[in-house]
C-alpha cells in the first residue's frame, strides 16, 4: 500500500510524487521528505541491522544523531555507505540498500550473534583473539571484519567533484532554529556580515517539528518569514545543507555544504560537496539539543524511537510511525508528543511516566511512577510490558513507542578546544562549560535554554553581546515552559539487555562489566565498550552511559564527567577533505624548459619533487631502458650530451657581506674565491650533518650565484633567509631565488666546447674560460650565464638563459652542433656518470651523513665559524672506524648489485652485529662493463683494494666484491680539465 502511514499536515509538497527504491522495492514519497520519513510513511520501520548482534533496527531519531538507520545510498561509483536515512533528502529515482545483513534485511544469517551475545560482551575481542598471534591477520581479523561492521565501500572511482572555499564574516551563526534565526536577524538588521549555517535543508530547527506559536504565527511560518527577511539582506549569507563540523583556532570554523546530495547527480560544473573554511570575528553556537533515550530491556526494536522524533515525523512530515502509540517519559517534553499525536488523530494508548505525582493528563491513560520493562516483536515492536507504581506488570499492544529521557544540549562545537561541559541538575544534562573557543557564544537549547522564548531571547542577546550592539528586535510571544524532569537513565527491572549505544551495541551490562574490570574512567569506559564511537559519536548514548557508570560507582555525574568532543561534528566524506587534490590534480607539476622538446621525442619522464624531468630519451629500435641510457652515457663521453638542469635551485646572493655570509653558511670558504670562478660548496646543518651541496660562482665583487640540489632548493633558501635575518641581521646581504628565472643546460663531453662555441658570442677557449670559470656572456645578443663545471667528469659547462628562451637554446644547440652528433640525456644517464665519478647525490646526502663519511672531511674549515662546524667535530661523528664512502664492483663482472644491500666480511653470518655498511647507489657502467655502486662502509678508507661480500637477503644476493675508490672513472680528472 502506498504511503499507508501518511497523515495530514507537514511541510511536504504533496503535489509532486517522488519514486525511490529501498532494497529493490519501489516506494513513493514527496519533496520535503527524508529517506526515513518516506519509508516510515510507507510503513517500513526495519531499516538496518546492528553492528555486533545484527539486531533488527529502525530509526530512533529524525536527525543527524541517528545511530541505526544507516544505508548504502546510490549505486556504482556514487555508492555511499553509512548514510543516515534520517538526513538523506529524498529525490526522484533515489536508490538505497540496507547494509550489514546477509542474505536479506528480514532474514540475516549473522543474527546468530544475538543468540551468542554472552560471548560478544565488551572486551570480547581483546580477550579472545589474542592467541595464537599469527592467527590475527589471516583468520580472526577477516572474519570479524565480515561479521561486524557497517556498509561496504565501492571500488569504483567517485565521478563527482569536490571543492574547497573560504568565507569571512563578522558573525557566524551555527544552527537556524529560533535562537540562530533571532541571532542572525539581530546582526543582519544591524548591517553586520552574517553567515547562518544549518545542516538541515529547511531552516527553522525544532520550530518545523513543533506546533508552537511564535508571535501571531505558527512557529514554522515565523521561521519561514524570518528566513525570507534574512535572504533579502545583502549582508547575510544563508547556508542550508551546511554542517559546521569543527571549531579551530582564532575564529576559524570548518563547514561541509552538501551542494548536490539532494539531486540524482550534481548539475553540470557543480561539485557534490564543498568544504568551507569560515573566518569569523565572532560566532554563536545555536545548535539546539538532542533527545536521549532511557535504557530498558529490548529497547532497540524498530518502532521504538525518541518521543520528540515521533512528534517531528507527525508534525513536519505528516507521518504516523504506528497505529497504536505509547510514550515513555521522565519529563514534560514526552507529554507533548502524546498531546500532539492525539491532536493528529493517532491512537495514543498510554503515557508511561516514570515520575510520581503531579496532574494527570486529561483524555489519555497517564500512568505515573510506571516504567517500561520489556518489549516484544521480532522485526518490529508489537507490545510493551510495563511495571506500574503498585508493582503490577501489564502487557500493552503497541506498534510504536516514543521514549524521552530528557534533552542534551549540543555542546560539541563549544568543546572542540577541550572545554569540559558542566552538569546542570535543573535540566539533568550537560551544558557548555568555561573556556570554550574564544569569540564563541552559545544560545538557545545548546546553552540549556530549553523554551522557545528563551531561545529567541538568548539568540538576540548573544548577537548583541558578540557585536557590541545596543539593541535588537522585539521578541515575539512564545512558550516559556520550564524543564520538569526527574532523571531516569535505565530501568532496573528485567534481566535482558538494555541498550545504551545502539550503534555499537553497548548495553547496561557492558557498562557493568567495564566497572567490574575497573575501567571506570569515562575515557576507559569508551575504549573498553566502544561506547560513543563510530558514525554517530554517541550523540544519543554517551550521557546515559556515563550516568549508568556514575550510578554503579557511587560517584556523581559531574565527578564522572564526559569524554572530549572532537571534530568533525558529523561524518565527513574523504573526498570532501581531499577536494580537488586527487589524481592528476593531487599536486601541481613543474615542467622544465625542455619539456615540450622532450615530449616531441617521446621522452620518458620521472617525478622529482614537483618537477617532471626527462629520465631518458628513447631512439627508434630501443626496446629496453638500459639500451637508451647506455647509449646516452657512451655518446656523451664520446662526443657531447646535453641535459636540462634547470631544476637545480639557483639563488642570487648580493651585498658587501655576500662573501662573509657564504663563509658562514658553507663549511668551506668562499670569500677568497676569485671573481669569475666557481667552487664546489658543502653546506652543513647545525648538527654537523651534510645538508646540501652545489657550486657557487662569484659573478662580481659583491655578487654570487649559488646552486642547490633539486630536492633542497626550497629548504636551502629558507635556511639562508634564517641565517641572514635571524643569526646575522647586520650583514649587508640580499637573496633572491632565481630557479624559475633561468633555463640551465649541462653540456658535457669532449666536444662540449666545440658545440658551445657555435652558439655563444664570446671566446670560450680554455685560456679565456678555464676550468671552474664563470661569467656573464651572450647568446646571439641574449644575456646568458656560463659556468665551466662538471658533474659527469667530462669537459662540461652549464649554460643559462632566461627561462622563456630555454626551449629555443636547446634546439639551437642541437641544430648548430649537429656535426658533433649531440644527444640529450636524462636523469638516468646523469646518475650513471656521477656514480662513475664518485659524486654524491640523494642516496649519499641522506640526512645522516657527515662530510667525513663522504670523504670530504677536509672541506670543513676550522679557521672560521660556519653552520655545523662545531658539532661536526663531536666524538661520535669523528670516529676513525665510522662510515666512509667507497666504490664497489663485483669480482664476477656478470654479478648484479642492488642498492640497499649490506657489506659483510667473508664468512660472516648475515646478522646485524656483522653489518659493515650498505650500498647507497648502484648503476650499470657501460665503461667498466659491470655493475658499480657507491656505499658507506665502516672504516672504508682503510679497506680500498680488499674483497668483501655484498648481501641482500630480500633480493637473494650474496656476491663477492672489490672495494675501490669512489672515483671509478678518470680518477685524475684529466677529461674535465681538457
Amino acid at each position, binding site marked *: 500500500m502506498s504511503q499507508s502511514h501518511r497523515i495530514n499536515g507537514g511541510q511536504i509538497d504533496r503535489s509532486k510524487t517522488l519514486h525511490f527504491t529501498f532494497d529493490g522495492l519501489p516506494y513513493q514519497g514527496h519533496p520535503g521528505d527524508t529517506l526515513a520519513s518516506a519509508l516510515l510513511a510507507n510503513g517500513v520501520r526495519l531499516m538496518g541491522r546492528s553492528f555486533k548482534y545484527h539486531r533488527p533496527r529502525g530509526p530512533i531519531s529524525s536527525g543527524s544523531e541517528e545511530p541505526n538507520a544507516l544505508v548504502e545510498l546510490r549505486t556504482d561509483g556514487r555508492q555511499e555507505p553509512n548514510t543516515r536515512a534520517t538526513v538523506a533528502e529524498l529525490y526522484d529515482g533515489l536508490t538505497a540498500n540496507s547494509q550489514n545483513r546477509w542474505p536479506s534485511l528480514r532474514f540475516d544469517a549473522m543474527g546468530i550473534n544475538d543468540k551468542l551475545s554472552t560471548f560478544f560482551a565488551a572486551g570480547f575481542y581483546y580477550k579472545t583473539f589474542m592467541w595464537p598471534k599469527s592467527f590475527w591477520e589471516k583468520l580472526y581479523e577477516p572474519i570479524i571484519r565480515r561479521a561486524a561492521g557497517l556498509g561496504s565501500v565501492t571500488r569504483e572511482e567517485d565521478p563527482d567533484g569536490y571543492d574547497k572555499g573560504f568565507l569571512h564574516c563578522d558573525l557566524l551563526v551555527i544552527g537556524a532554529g529560533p535562537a540562530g534565526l533571532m541571532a542572525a536577524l539581530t546582526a543582519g538588521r544591524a548591517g553586520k556580515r552574517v553567515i547562518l549555517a544549518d545542516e538541515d535543508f529547511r531552516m527553522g530547527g525544532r520550530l518545523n517539528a513543533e506546533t508552537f506559536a511564535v508571535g501571531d504565527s505558527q512557529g514554522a511560518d515565523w521561521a519561514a518569514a524570518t528566513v525570507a527577511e534574512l535572504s533579502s539582506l545583502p549582508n547575510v549569507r544563508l547556508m542550508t545543507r551546511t554542517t559546521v563540523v569543527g571549531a579551530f583556532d*582564532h575564529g576559524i570554523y570548518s563547514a561541509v555544504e552538501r551542494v548536490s546530495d539532494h539531486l540524482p547527480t550534481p548539475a553540470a560544473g557543480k561539485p557534490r560537496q564543498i568544504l568551507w573554511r569560515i573566518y569569523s570575528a565572532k560566532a554563536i553556537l545555536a545548535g539546539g539539543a538532542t533527545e536521549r533515550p532511557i535504557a530498558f530491556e529490548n529497547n532497540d526494536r524498530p518502532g521504538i524511537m525518541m518521543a520528540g522524533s515521533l512528534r517531528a515525523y507527525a508534525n513536519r512530515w505528516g507521518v504516523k510511525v504506528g497505529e497504536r502509540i505509547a510514550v515513555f517519559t521522565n519529563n514534560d517534553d514526552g507529554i507533548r508528543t502524546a498531546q500532539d499525536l492525539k491532536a493528529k488523530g493517532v491512537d495514543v494508548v498510554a503515557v508511561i511516566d516514570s515520575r510520581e505525582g503531579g496532574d494527570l493528563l486529561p483524555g489519555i491513560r497517564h500512568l505515573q511512577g510506571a516504567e517500561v520493562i520489556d518489549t516484544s516483536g521480532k522485526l518490529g515492536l508489537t507490545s510493551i510490558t510495563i511495571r506500574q507504581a503498585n508493582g503490577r506488570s501489564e502487557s500493552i499492544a503497541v506498534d510504536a513507542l516514543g521514549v524521552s529521557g530528557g534533552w542534551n544540549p549540543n555542546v560539541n562545537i563549544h568543546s572542540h578546544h577541550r572545554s569540559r561541559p558542566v552538569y546542570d541538575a535543573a535540566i539533568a544534562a550537560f551544558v557548555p562549560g568555561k573556556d570554550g573557543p574564544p569569540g564563541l557564544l552559545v544560545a538557545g537549547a545548546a546553552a540549556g535554554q530549553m523554551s522557545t522564548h528563551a531561545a529567541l531571547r538568548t539568540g538576540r542577546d548573544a548577537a548583541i553581546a558578540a557585536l557590541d550592539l545596543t539593541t535588537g528586535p522585539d521578541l515575539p510571544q512564545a512558550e516559556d515552559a520550564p524543564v520538569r524532569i526527574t532523571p531516569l537513565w535505565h530501568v532496573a527491572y528485567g534481566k535482558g539487555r538494555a541498550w545504551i549505544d545502539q550503534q555499537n551495541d553497548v548495553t547496561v551490562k557492558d557498562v557493568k562489566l567495564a566497572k567490574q574490570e575497573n575501567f571506570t574512567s569515562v575515557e576507559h569506559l569508551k575504549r573498553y565498550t566502544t561506547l560513543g564511537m563510530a558514525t554517530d559519536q554517541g550523540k544519543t548514548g554517551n550521557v546515559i552511559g556515563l550516568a549508568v557508570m556514575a550510578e554503579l560507582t557511587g560517584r556523581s555525574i559531574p565527578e564522572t564527567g564526559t569524554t572530549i568532543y572532537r571534530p568533525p561534528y558529523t561524518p565527513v566524506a574523504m573526498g570532501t577533505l581531499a577536494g580537488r587534490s586527487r589524481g592528476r590534480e593531487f599536486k601541481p607539476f613543474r615542467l622544465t624548459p625542455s619539456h615540450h622538446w622532450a615530449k616531441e621525442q617521446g621522452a620518458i619522464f620521472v617525478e622529482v619533487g614537483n618537477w617532471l624531468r626527462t629520465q631518458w630519451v628513447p631512439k627508434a629500435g630501443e626496446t629496453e631502458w638500459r639500451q637508451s641510457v647506455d647509449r646516452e652515457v657512451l655518446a656523451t663521453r664520446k662526443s657531447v650530451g646535453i641535459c636540462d638542469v634547470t631544476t637545480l635551485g639557483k639563488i642570487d646572493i648580493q651585498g658587501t657581506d655576500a662573501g662573509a655570509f657564504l663563509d658562514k653558511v658553507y663549511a668551506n670558504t668562499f670569500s677568497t674565491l676569485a671573481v669569475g670562478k666557481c667552487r664546489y660548496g658543502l653546506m652543513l646543518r647545525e648538527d654537523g650533518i651534510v645538508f646540501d651541496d652545489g657550486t657557487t660562482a662569484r659573478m662580481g665583487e659583491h655578487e654570487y650565484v649559488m646552486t642547490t640540489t633539486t630536492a633542497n632548493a626550497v629548504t636551502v633558501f629558507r635556511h639562508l633567509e634564517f641565517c641572514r*635575518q635571524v643569526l646575522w641581521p647586520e650583514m649587508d646581504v640580499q637573496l633572491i631565488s632565481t630557479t624559475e628565472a633561468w633555463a640551465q643546460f649541462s653540456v658535457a663531453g669532449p666536444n662540449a666546447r666545440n658545440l658551445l662555441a657555435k652558439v655563444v658570442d664570446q671566446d670560450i677557449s680554455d685560456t679565456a674560460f678555464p676550468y671552474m670559470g664563470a661569467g656573464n656572456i651572450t647568446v646571439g645578443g641574449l644575456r646568458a650565464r656560463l659556468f665551466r663545471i662538471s658533474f659527469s667528469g667530462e669537459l662540461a659547462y652549464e649554460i643559462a638563459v632566461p627561462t622563456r628562451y630555454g626551449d629555443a637554446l636547446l634546439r639551437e644547440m642541437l641544430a648548430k652542433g649537429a656535426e658533433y652528433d649531440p644527444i640529450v640525456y636524462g636523469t638516468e644517464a646523469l646518475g650513471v656518470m656521477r656514480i662513475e665519478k664518485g659524486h654524491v647525490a640523494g642516496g649519499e646526502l641522506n640526512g645522516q651523513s657527515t662530510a667525513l663519511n663522504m670523504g670530504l672531511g677536509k672541506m670543513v674549515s676550522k679557521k672560521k*665559524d*660556519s653552520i655545523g662546524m662545531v658539532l661536526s667535530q663531536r666524538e661520535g661523528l669523528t670516529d676513525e672506524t665510522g662510515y666512509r664512502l667507497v666504490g664497489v664492483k663485483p669480482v664476477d663482472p656478470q654479478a648484479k648489485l642492488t642498492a640497499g644491500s649490506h657489506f659483510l666480511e667473508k664468512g660472516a653470518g648475515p646478522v646485524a652485529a656483522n653489518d659493515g655498511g650498505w650500498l647507497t647507489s648502484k648503476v650499470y657502467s657501460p665503461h667498466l662493463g659491470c655493475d658499480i655502486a657507491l656505499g658507506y662502509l665502516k672504516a672504508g678508507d682503510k679497506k680500498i683494494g680488499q674483497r668483501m661480500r655484498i648481501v641482500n637477503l630480500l633480493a637473494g644476493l650474496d656476491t663477492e666484491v672489490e672495494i675501490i675508490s669512489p672515483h671509478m672513472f678518470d680518477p685524475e680528472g684529466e677529461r674535465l680539465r681538457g
Partner: protein
Amino acid sequence: MIIHHPILGPRDAQEFVYLGDASLIDRPDGMTAGVEAFHDYLYNRTNPAGEHQELWYHEQGDRSWLVVTRNTVTHEITKVELARDVARARGRTK
C-alpha cells in the same frame, strides 16, 4: 590559526612554515663556544605549557622570519615581531 604579520596584517597560518623555539636566535659563536654550548643551543628546549616564543617563516608571503609569542595551551597569539628586530635587540650583528 591567524598570525598578525607586523607588515602584512592578519595572515592564515597555512602561509607560514614553523621552525621552533625562538631560542634558536641565540646561536653561540663557533670560534669561542664549544660542543657543549652548541649542544644546548641545538637540542635543549624549555617546552613550556603556556607562553612560548617561536620562529615562523612567511614562505608563501614576504619571506620574513617572525617571532610569534603564542600560548601553547590556548593557541592565543599575543605578539608578533620581525625576527630581525628581535635578533638585533638581543645584540646579534654580523
